[in-house]
Structures are given as C-alpha cells and as structure tokens.
C-alpha cells in the first residue's frame, strides 16, 4: 500500500546523533521524538526502576531551563508532550505548532547536554515520592496489578534483564541517590546513544541547520555496552497463587518465546489474535460464549530486543474453576498443534492487522515514534511495509509450528485469587 511508504531522510551528526526527518505539510504542526537506546534492561539488581526514575528527572530542569519550565514552555506554545520508558528504550516527545520547532530543539538539547548542572537532592526526593506513588497507583493498588511483575520474575532467569519490571521494586526506588542518577546519565544519555525524529510541517534546510546548532556541540560519551542475553527456557513448570484485592479469580499461563522481529514473532502475534482477538477467536468463543466459564480471556505475544514471551490470561466467572479453564486452554493448544487453522481465521487476523497499520498513521506522533522504533529494531525507519509483510507471509502451518515450538514447553501458571478474609 502506498500510504505505508513513509519518505524520510536519515543522517548522523558528527557526535553520533542519528537524525530522521519526515516532512508532511498537511497540518501546521510538528513532532520531535527522541529515543535514548536505554531502558530498564540496562539496570542492575538493587537499582531496578532507575531508567524510569531518570525519565522523570529529565523534566526537572537542566542548565538553562528551570524546574517545571519544560512543561510550561511547551504548553504555553500550544503543544503537548510526554515520555515513556520500557525494557529497551526511553522516549521523549513534543508535538507543537510548527513555528515553535526551535523551542523544542532548545529544550531537548539542553537536557541531553546539560542535565547534570541542574540536578539536586530536593528534586530527586520529590520525584522518588512521585514515582513511589505512581507504583502504588498503577500496580500495588490495581486489581491484578502485580501479576506482570510476578510472571516475568518467574519466567525469565534471575540474571535476565526482563526479569524485573520497568517501574522497579519499591525498596529499590527508595534507595536511589544523586550518584545513581548522574552515573546513569553518564553511562547512557549521549547523542551517540540517541536518535531524533522530526516529523511534520518544516523547512528541511532550516531544520537541519537548527539541529546542528542545538545538538552539534553536545559531546559524546562512551556508552556502557548492552547486556548479553541468551534465550533460556524454563526447566520446570512453575505454579504460584497470589492473593489480591480482587473479586474474581484469574489465571495467567506464560511461555518463553522469541525476540522482537525474530522469525516466529509475527506468527505468535497472529496466534494471539486467533485465540482471543474477537468473538470468534477460539478461546473467547469457547470460554466466554459457549461454556461461560470465563468473563474474559486475553492472549498476547510480548517481544523486545532481549527476549519475549507469550501469555494467556483468563478471568473465571464466580464459582467456575481455574483448573477447568486451564484444561480447556491446553486442549485448544493441542488441537492447534495438530490441525492447521482455517484459512478464513488467518485471513480475518491479517485483514485486521493490515487495516490497523493504516489507522495508526492518523497521528503524526505515532508515525514519528514508529520511525524511531523501526530504526532501533531494524535500522531502517521506513519499515511499515516490511513490517506488514511479516504478517501477510505467515501461513496456516507457521501457526501450527509456533504452537509446537513454544506452547508445549514448560510454563508459568500464576493465579490471582481474592484475599481469603476479604471484608468487602
């Protein structure tokens, strides 16, 4: 499809900063999206969550930008902004009227180069407290909120960088010092470890010279090398039950699979859709509609730079047994290991995926982020068509083979059940 071909220009500054320009003048605004090639996978035990805390600190001001002013400048100019941290990377982005491109470049370059100058204990204490509250709000106080952390810490070996969650453990968050923060900056926040995408309405020559002006003089640092990781499967089946403030029991079954963009990644994603993507999906149809054992069921393939896993979660209706649900899930898996799925099942998933590619282009922020994403994982920003073709190429037998290769191995069986002495 033509619309999936995103024309871009990519080059490197002398200090190693990768620059990707995508011009689209249909609306009068512009997106600046920076990926630092570091995330929680670069952390060490005892200091989990540091990459994410660091992301917060990046909004606390830099040499020429006072605390709170980063947000204020962008919002005053009519822009929106945010950032996010994952296992593999940290991104920062602004979207604003095109006449304020220079403002965003000034802000981003100031914190890329001169973050340390404005760092102090008061800011760190404040953001530790904010992040602890973020953890309480989004994980500890959410029904089933601790499942992810429990699963990955059991599924991946203890030395694997995906064995702890990006938010970090409570005690680790409490322990960060100013030294932790500044050495994280020194180790990972370098122009040579980042890529910047400018997307939207701009003049190319002028934009290039502004990027050179603001980022060109920033010094590169030597980057600590990435963790070495090999895929390792579970040696035994692991079963765990956790009590939580929930009203319905839920089971999670998880298997180790493959890295992002590896050979089976796309067929595993299609498999998740075949299992739970719609009313007709196999597990949804059986568990939710025909047998009414489950209130909901969800399958997903997670994959990143250093590994991946496949997960099926099902919430039991009151009085229904998780054992029965699990039995049915495994029965379906053994059917999938023997018989190819119907060609219509496959076609349905492919058509939905194809359309979603087009729908996702509506936001220029998404396009900018995807250019950085593809550049990071595939070293080619314009990989929309390549990516879509990964799915179109999957055939019925690929799905069967993936099921055999991954879903018949050892797994983690985690159950979240209501607290026994629940007063509510």
């Amino acid at each position, binding site marked *: 499809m033509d619309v999936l071909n995103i024309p871009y220009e990519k080059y490197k500054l002398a200090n190693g900063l990768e620059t990707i320009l995508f011009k689209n003048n249909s*609306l009068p605004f512009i997106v600046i999206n920076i990926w630092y090639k570091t995330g929680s996978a670069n952390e060490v035990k005892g200091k989990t969550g540091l990459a994410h805390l660091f992301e917060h600190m990046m909004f606390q001001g830099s040499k020429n930008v006072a605390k709170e002013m980063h947000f204020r400048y962008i919002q005053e100019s*009519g822009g929106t902004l945010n950032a996010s941290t994952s296992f593999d990377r940290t991104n920062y982005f602004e979207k604003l*009227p095109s006449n304020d491109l220079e403002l965003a470049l000034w802000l981003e*370059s100031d914190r890329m180069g001169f973050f340390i100058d404005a760092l102090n204990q008061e800011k760190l204490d404040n953001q530790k407290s904010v992040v602890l509250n973020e953890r309480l*709000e989004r994980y500890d*106080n959410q029904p089933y909120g601790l499942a992810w952390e429990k699963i990955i810490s059991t599924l991946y070996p203890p030395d694997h960088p995906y064995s702890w969650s990006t938010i970090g453990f409570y005690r680790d968050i409490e322990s960060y010092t100013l030294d932790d923060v500044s050495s994280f900056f020194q180790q990972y926040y370098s122009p040579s470890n980042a890529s910047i995408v400018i997307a939207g309405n701009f003049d190319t020559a002028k934009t290039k010279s502004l990027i050179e002006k603001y980022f060109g003089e920033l010094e590169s640092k030597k980057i600590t090398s990435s963790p070495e990781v090999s895929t390792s499967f579970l040696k035994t089946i692991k079963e765990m039950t956790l009590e939580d403030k929930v*009203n319905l029991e839920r089971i999670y079954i998880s298997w180790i699979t493959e890295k992002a963009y590896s050979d089976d990644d796309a067929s595993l994603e299609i498999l998740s859709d075949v299992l739970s993507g719609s009313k007709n999906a196999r597990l949804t149809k059986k568990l939710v509609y025909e047998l009414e054992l489950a209130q909901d069921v969800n399958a997903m393939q997670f994959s990143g730079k250093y590994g991946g896993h496949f997960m099926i979660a099902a919430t039991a209706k*009151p009085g229904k047994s998780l054992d029965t649900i699990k039995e049915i899930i495994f029965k379906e898996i053994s059917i999938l290991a023997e018989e190819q799925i119907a060609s219509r099942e496959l*076609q349905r998933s492919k058509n939905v995926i194809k*359309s979603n590619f087009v729908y996702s282009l509506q936001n220029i922020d998404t396009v900018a982020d995807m250019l950085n994403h593809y550049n990071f994982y595939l070293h080619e920003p314009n990989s929309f068509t390549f990516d879509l073709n990964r799915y179109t190429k999957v055939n019925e037998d690929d799905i069967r083979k993936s099921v055999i290769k991954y879903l018949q191995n050892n797994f983690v069986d985690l159950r979240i059940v209501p607290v026994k002495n629940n007063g509510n």
Partner: protein
Amino acid sequence: MAINRSKRPQSSGDVNFKLPVILDFELNNRLNIYYCEKNDLPIVRINFLVNSGSKFDPVKFKGLSTLLTMTIDEGAGSLNAFQLSDEFEILGANFSVSSDPDISIITLQVLTENFIEALKLFSSVILKPHLNDDNFNLEKRKLLVRLEQVKAEPDYIADISYEHFLFGNQTAYSFPVLGLEQDIKNIQHQDVRHFYKEKFSPSNSSIVVVGNIDRDTIQQALNEVFGNWKNDSSTRIPEFNLQKFPKNIYIINKEDAVQTEIRIGHLTSKRNDKDFFQKQIMNLVFGGQFSSRLNLNLREKNGYTYGIHSSFSYFKEAGYFSVSTSVDSENTTNALKEIFSEITKIREGITEDELRFAQSSLTKKFPLNFETYRQISLNIRNKIFHSLPDDYYESYVDNINSISRDDVNKTAGDSIQPDALITVLVGDSKKILKQLVREEFGEVTSIGYDDIFIH
C-alpha cells in the same frame, strides 16, 4: 563556538490553519447527517448517535441502556452474532458500541475500499438487531459479573460514588451507566426490545461521517441503507431538579488499600451557559494541565501523588466541577488540606501571567484538535450534542482571547463554592479516620459501596 542557550528561542512567524469544513444534510426520512471530507488517508469513520443513554433508564431498571448496547450487535439481519463479527473482521473494520449517561454511540472505522460493505453491516445492527432471548440472557449474566469485577477497582468506585453524591438520590444522573445489580436481575428480554423500539428512530438519532469519501457518494450510500427507515417515536427527557448539597466527606472503605482515591467538587452550570470560556481558562490554571497550581503543589512540590487534575464536566442537562487524584494513604489529609486551600485561593482569582499562559495554550493548541478522523468526529459530536452555535469553532480563538482577567475572576468567585464541596475518599478507612480531625474537616460519613445505591 558555543551558542547562547540562556533564552527561549523566538517563535518563527505565524502558522496557517484552516478548519475542516463540516456540512450537514438530511436523508429522505429526515435523519440528520453531519459530514466532513478528509482525504489524507483511505479511511472512513462513521458514528451513529442516539439519545438512549443511561439517564433514560427507568426507575428500577438501571442498566437497561447498557444491556441494549451489549445485546444490539449480537446478531442482526441475516447474520448471527458470530457471523456478524466475522464479517466485520474480514473487512478489517473496527466496530464498537458504547453508552454514556446521555447517548449511545455505534462506531465504525474502516478502509475506504471496504466502506460500502461495512456500512451494510453497520446499518443492519442499527435497523435489524436480533435482540434475541439467548443472547440477551448471556449478556445480562456477563454484565452482572462485570459489576462484581469493577467493585475491586478503586478509581471506578470513586468516580461512580462521587457522581451519585453530586446528583443525590433522585435524578437520572445519579446512577452508574452499568446499572444496579438488583435492577439488572429483574430486567427482561422484552424490556430491552421495548427500549430499542422507543429510542431508535430517525428523529432521535444523528450520524457523523468523517472520511475519504465525497459528498454525493456518502449521501447516496446512507440514503440506500437508512433512507427508508421509519419509526415515529417520541422520547421524553427526564426532568432534572438539580440541587447542591451541603459540604460532606464520604469515606468508602477499601481494606488495606495503599492509596486513597480522592474526588472533590460540586455541580456547576451547563455546557452552553455563558461562562464556559471563563471556566475553561480558570480550570487550565487551576488543575487542567501539568503546570497547573494543583499539580505543582501536590506532585511537584509535595510528592503526594503521581498526578492530580481538575475539570468541568458536562452532561447534556448538567455540569459539574471536580478535582481528582489518588495519594498514598498516609498523606490523605495532607493532600486534602492542600486541595481545599487551593480551592479557596482560586476563588481570589488568577494573575495576568496565568491568564496570558492559559489563552496562549488554548488558542495555539486549537489546530492540534483537528488532526485525526476520531478527533474531528468528536468535535462534531460535541457541537451537535450541546447545541453549540454554528460558528463555534470558527470563533473559538477570538472568544478565548476576548476574556479578561476580571471575567475569569468573577466566574471563579461565583462558580466555585467551598461550602458545597462533596468529597469522596476510597481507601482504608482506618488509616484515613486516624488522620481526619472532625473540627477541621466537618461532616464525615462512612459508607459501604453496596449501601450507596439502595433505593
């Protein structure tokens, strides 16, 4: 040579923005269509809006509207529920149905090449839903379990309880969209069919289309599927006798919760009242964005929360003001003190700087609200729904810029009433009560979630 980084760079010139053109026309049966042609991607998005939200749920039938939206796509025309879903997917279409307190919305987003086929399915859901007994009962069982499930979600409990205490026991906005357990148990299949017949009619509905399709084609396509639809029903809008209640703090116990969900506010004027722009500016300064007074105080200074915001929300027949956050349990009253103190302060008005910031932010951000097919649909819906003036979007920037500091300050004094603040706290009541000094905080009521909606 090092550059001078000490000052914010100047903006370079003005930006040019043209609002998308919105047309409206009627089908043969007078069904209203709002349409915007948008050709940057091969996408068509269509919304069917019908006045059948949960405010129309009769007494003892709370949950009827939601049950209709849950059942309506379980089979239509010649297709059963599974066939229908299969056909939508083969077309790569996103299809969804939802309900809010005022309206139900049926949404389709699809690639242009599949639009005409998808439109047939879409219209059959609206015109020929099966609403059969088995599907209804299955959805009803699902909804009852859903109600059980959401009781474990502190933010949901806080939102629902807050609205209930705002609107009191007697109005149609006092109840959750999902409905009440004891009512749902009594709702029967024929009630949903009756509700459908009463509400789904050309005169009670409208359609919004934003997409890569020209005016003649869309008009013809819509006339083909909807043009002969006849159903003369008249819908009575429930009466709203809204009143404010005296200041009170409600605590809903969540044993061992590590945070307290906080909602604070009261009823205010409706969306189409004259002080809308003043309130919008005041809210932006107060709690409407990251560098607002509330967030700078409770998050960036005190670290009590991951985030706090305030808003003026608008239903069709009512408006309300609210502050919303969640804080670690130990800081519940510390946070309350700061929020109450900021509420008192905002009544004294905003500064010239704050006014300029808010005006700049709102007016310059305006073009960003018209980027996606969804955003444009929402803007059109907003305009129809609140009966905003024809030139509402054309005059938006001028309207914001015409507001003076005195205007905002007068509105702040009039529209924020500390004596009428309803506070809802969802958290561990033992931890909360230990901190709450009655002399300082006034009336406190502890109540179980299950006891709130007994009527």
